[in-house]
């Protein structure tokens, strides 16, 4: 069953002349992990804000078309309660710290206090989510005395703890090193297996290739490609739109031009695929030499 149904969505911010999203149509199934790629200004964040209800309820502006999440028309939901259904984690971890709390533990509990979760359940959920995101050792620290990567995990934990049906993440790994990014992707993959629907705007194509079920490429507010990660991430048009490609794809594309990639084999997006392709071409070369 499709949890997210978007039909011909066009949206313009109040102070802008041009729409941030044009004729976007999209369906996402329950428990699916969809990654959105695109250059800066392509509309990734706007799409995230729309699913979370901040467009049009916070930013106002003009919304045309239909957006249904969990069967409800986004235009007719109350934003203050909608956040229980759709969790939003955004880019700048610093501004996601509430400022109302003095320790990481309290910071994560803040959302649960607001939605009236009883104390015992609150503690259990906070501790669970801190273990899941690997920040249990930060419990008593001030949320402001953390590194960017630690703050980003706190921001993620603060939303996860509210157990939304749909999780929307706008570049949640921007401040994380490769190890931290992989951990976040693993946590998110795990949540998707548990039935949480995930929409994530992200630049790190290597991780997307490994963990996402589907990739949507946005450019200038329009969807230019949608499908399996292996398919979309090797689309030859991506660089023209200013979308970064995996280093493995880039190397293999260069190799293919020089005739060093197995003909008719799709370009790789992960290290394993690249290694397999080069191994194959090496074997045929050896075969020819002998």
């Amino acid at each position: 069953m499709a949890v997210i149904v978007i039909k011909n969505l066009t949206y313009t911010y109040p102070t802008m002349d041009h729409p941030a999203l044009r004729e976007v149509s999209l369906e996402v199934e329950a428990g699916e992990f969809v990654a959105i790629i695109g250059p800066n200004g392509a509309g990734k964040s706007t799409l995230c804000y729309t699913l979370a209800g901040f467009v049009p309820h916070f930013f106002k502006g003009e919304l045309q078309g239909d957006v249904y999440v969990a069967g409800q028309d986004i235009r007719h939901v109350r934003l203050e309660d909608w956040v229980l259904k759709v969790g939003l984690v955004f880019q700048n971890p610093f501004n996601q710290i509430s400022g109302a709390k003095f320790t990481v533990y309290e910071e994560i509990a803040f959302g649960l206090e607001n939605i009236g979760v009883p104390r015992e359940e609150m503690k259990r959920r906070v501790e669970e989510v801190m273990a899941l995101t690997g920040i249990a050792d930060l419990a008593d620290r001030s949320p402001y005395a953390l590194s960017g990567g630690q703050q980003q995990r706190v921001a993620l934990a603060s939303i996860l703890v509210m157990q939304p049906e749909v999780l929307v993440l706008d570049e949640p790994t921007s401040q994380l090193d490769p190890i931290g990014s992989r951990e976040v992707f693993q946590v998110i993959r795990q949540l998707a297996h548990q039935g949480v629907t995930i929409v994530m705007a992200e630049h790190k194509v290597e991780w997307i290739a490994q963990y996402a079920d589907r990739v949507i490429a946005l450019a200038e507010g329009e969807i230019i490609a949608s499908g399996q990660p292996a398919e979309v991430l090797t689309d030859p048009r991506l660089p023209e739109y200013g979308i970064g490609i995996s280093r493995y794809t880039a190397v293999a594309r260069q190799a293919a031009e020089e005739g060093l990639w197995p003909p008719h084999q799709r370009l790789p997006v992960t290290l394993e695929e690249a290694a397999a392709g080069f191994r194959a071409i090496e074997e045929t070369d050896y075969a020819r030499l002998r």
Partner: protein
Amino acid sequence: MVERLSFYLERNSPLHRLNPTTKLVVAFTLILVAFLGRGLFLPSLIFLLILAPLSFLGQVGREFLRTTLNLLLPLFAFLFVMQSLFYPGGKTVLFGFWIFAVKLEGVRFAFLTATRVLVMVSSFLLLLLTTHPGVLLLDLTQRGLPASVAYILASTLQIIPQMQAKAATILDAQRSRGLDTSGSLGRRIRALLPLVGPLVFGSLVDVEERAIAIEARGFRSSRPKTSLVEIEDRPLERALRWLCLLAFILALGSHLWP
């Protein structure tokens, strides 16, 4: 970036365990009594017999005395010099030198004012030293302070070190591109102007994101709120607060009595 966000010192003392509202009420009462009550030595007795012993009960005595003196000594010195020499209507000359004369009325006035200010500052200081700001705000919220007001107060405490860090970053960035921030006073002030734009506009952008962030955490949720921390309020404390009201009424009475 580890910054101390408040005066609060963590201890396990009876004063720390007291309900924050009780401490707030006691602090206000002591201040009102010191200002309204009669008697030259009333405020100084309040400090010596109530506030100072309480600070040792709260295991923050040294910090309490040191911070109080640091805050108030310069003010007291100024107050005594000005008032003892120039208090209007001073007649009783204690001693004189050169063209100056120190008058008794001035000294009395300076002493009373100084000890009143001492009670005001030190009772709040004691409250802040022994009460975590988060717990104080939580308690006030549970007693009916709007959550948004509590939020503004709590986030202000946290935002000051942030703003300082941000200003330092902007200033460093500008210096590294050749902005001269040394030299005469006028030049330094002019060098600060380019800081204002980025700091103010940057903060406005932050405000929008912060608003989204707390909305996303259900801040305006229509459900009744709960809280992680439970704050004790014993019947004895309620009695103490009524006692405070009584003390205030007595002080007011003595103030209004002809």
